[in-house]
């Protein structure tokens, strides 16, 4: 029982972080219908940047983290401006492959600057674990879940009330109408990329506080694709619902199937979920089903 509760709680917490990273994907998809496959590498590079700031440059938290956010904003702006802006209205194949190229480049950049390939961020949260019933949970998980939830709340408020948020929702709805209303669509695109990079960065820092910085972070980014697929590509609620589901499936499945099937099953459960969703309900739980016309 204690084991079960343990898996459930870690699963929920990790799922929240997946949901946060997936939100970064949904943001870009909604406003510009670009599928960002470089998500994992964005997570990776911002975690390493945080490491560079906190450990290598020895900065305190209150300077290091804002700098990471600024870096993420800058990265998002550069990527949108240099690679996706020239490709507006190109076939979807180019849009997907260009993000693959970006991911490849960023991965090279990471090995270029930080060749050690494994590192740990300094501990930020108190270390003593706390108890929920019979389960023992380390505090990092709770913090990660809480921060993800807060950020999600802030973002929903932003989309609900801020002028730019409303513009972004409108762009997602109808680009032509938005342009007619004199909303700068290109600025909406770059804002969505900047936001996506920031959520990826926060998610990356939370994951690497738990598990250290490794190339596994790229896989974390890829796993959050299963969140978007399950939740539906263009739905924020879908991300928030599907994230914990994926986290639960991963941890429960990893916990109970490993003795039966073998180690490492945990890491491919999200991918198996992708295949299943694809065959049964490709538009996900909350996604909008588009009817195609010629």
């Amino acid at each position, binding site marked *: 029982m204690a084991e079960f509760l343990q898996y459930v709680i870690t699963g929920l917490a990790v799922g929240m972080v997946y949901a946060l990273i997936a939100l970064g994907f949904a943001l870009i*998809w909604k406003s510009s219908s670009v*599928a960002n*496959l470089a998500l994992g590498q964005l997570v990776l590079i911002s975690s390493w940047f945080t490491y560079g700031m906190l450990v290598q440059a020895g900065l305190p938290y209150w300077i290091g983290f804002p700098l990471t956010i600024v870096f993420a904003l800058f990265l998002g702006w550069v990527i949108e401006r240099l*690679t996706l802006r*020239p*490709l507006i209205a*190109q076939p*979807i*194949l*180019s849009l*997907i*492959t*260009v993000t*693959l*190229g*970006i*991911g*490849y*480049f*960023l*991965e*090279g*950049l*990471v*090995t*270029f*600057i*930080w*060749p050690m390939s494994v590192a740990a961020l300094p501990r930020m949260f108190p270390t003593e674990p706390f108890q929920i019933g019979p389960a023992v949970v380390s505090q990092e998980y709770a913090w990660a879940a809480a921060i993800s939830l807060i950020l999600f709340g802030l973002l929903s408020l932003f989309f609900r009330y801020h002028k730019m948020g409303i513009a972004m929702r409108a762009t997602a709805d109808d680009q032509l109408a938005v342009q007619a209303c004199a909303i700068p669509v290109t600025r909406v695109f770059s804002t969505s990329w900047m936001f996506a990079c920031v959520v990826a960065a926060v998610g990356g820092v939370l994951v690497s506080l738990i598990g250290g910085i490794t190339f596994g972070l790229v896989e974390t980014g*890829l796993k959050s*694709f*299963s969140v978007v*697929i399950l939740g539906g*590509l263009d739905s924020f609620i879908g991300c928030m619902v599907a994230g914990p589901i994926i986290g639960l499936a991963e941890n429960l499945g990893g916990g109970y199937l490993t003795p039966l*099937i*073998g*180690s*490492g099953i945990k*890491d*491919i459960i999200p*991918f*198996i979920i*992708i*295949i299943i969703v*694809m*065959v049964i309900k*490709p538009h996900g739980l909350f996604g909008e089903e588009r009817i*195609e*016309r*010629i």
Partner: protein
Amino acid sequence: MDLPCGTRNFDYARDMAVLRTKTHWALFLVFLLVLFTMPLYLSKYWLGVSNFIGISIIAALGLNLLVGYCGQLSVGHAGFIAVGAYTTAVLTGNLGVPFLLALLCSGIIAGLVGLIFGLPSVRVKGFYLAITTIAAQFIIIWIINHWSSVTGGFVGISVPLASIGPLEFRSEGSQFYLIMGLTALCILFSKNLARGRVGRAFVAVRDNDLAAEVMGINLLYYKLLAFFIGCFLAGISGSLLATWVGYMNAENFTLADSILYIGIIIIGGLGTTLGPILGVLVIRLLQQAIMYLSPLIESGFPVLPAGFTTGIGPMVFGLVIILFLVLEPRGVAHRWTLFKAAYRLWPFSY
């Protein structure tokens, strides 16, 4: 402007011929002569590079049929190559099946695995399909790593040399003939498939699959056929790779390789048979250049960070993919046709 001035089409067969003029034939024969005498004057190292180029061309041709012609994006090509490679390794190494049969089986099994993961393509496309194939890549590699009673797991598996009857392909030079022969066959197959009925159906599906369906093209059949043929060629390439390398584990087939193959066909030019060949040449020779130059640059400039040699490769490839997509989305093959048109008109500009 793809033909010299004064070339006329008197009948359909001549219209459809790949080699049209006497100059074409002469150049082609010279090229074949140079290609097949290469083992006489190339060093062992460069023969190895050409073998790897040949193997990559087969895989890239398959991906090009799938992505370039049929428009079904697959980011798991390295996984399907792995299926072919391991099939050959298990069949020839553990079960003692003759190489040619194993080669065929590798292609077919890789094709069937491709069919399984291509099945969602009937309902979804674009990004969804990309994600499905990424998932395929991870699942295939996981199975290879954990089915250790058959595949050797993380340790890897050794593969016997290729042999046809009493003939054993032991040296790099003899493997060159095997690989180049098969590559030539695959190029011919892919060229003819692409300009036949199947290829035209693929193009129709790529351009607008709904419209294609309305015109009477069986979407299920042709999409799955594209997956089968694309992965069949991947399997053949993997089989050759396995016997050429001799020893391998799943580390040889990463997601990065899959992305690199997409990069190859984009750089070469999607939807042309020449494209994958040029793309493979560009990328593999670039790899050689980086391998040769980066230690020199690193020793020349001690200020560079320690990860320079390992990091520069992916950086350059990523950059090349992005630049080609932004600046020349039709690839090197398009530049080649422009060049041909220009020299035929020279000294006039049009």
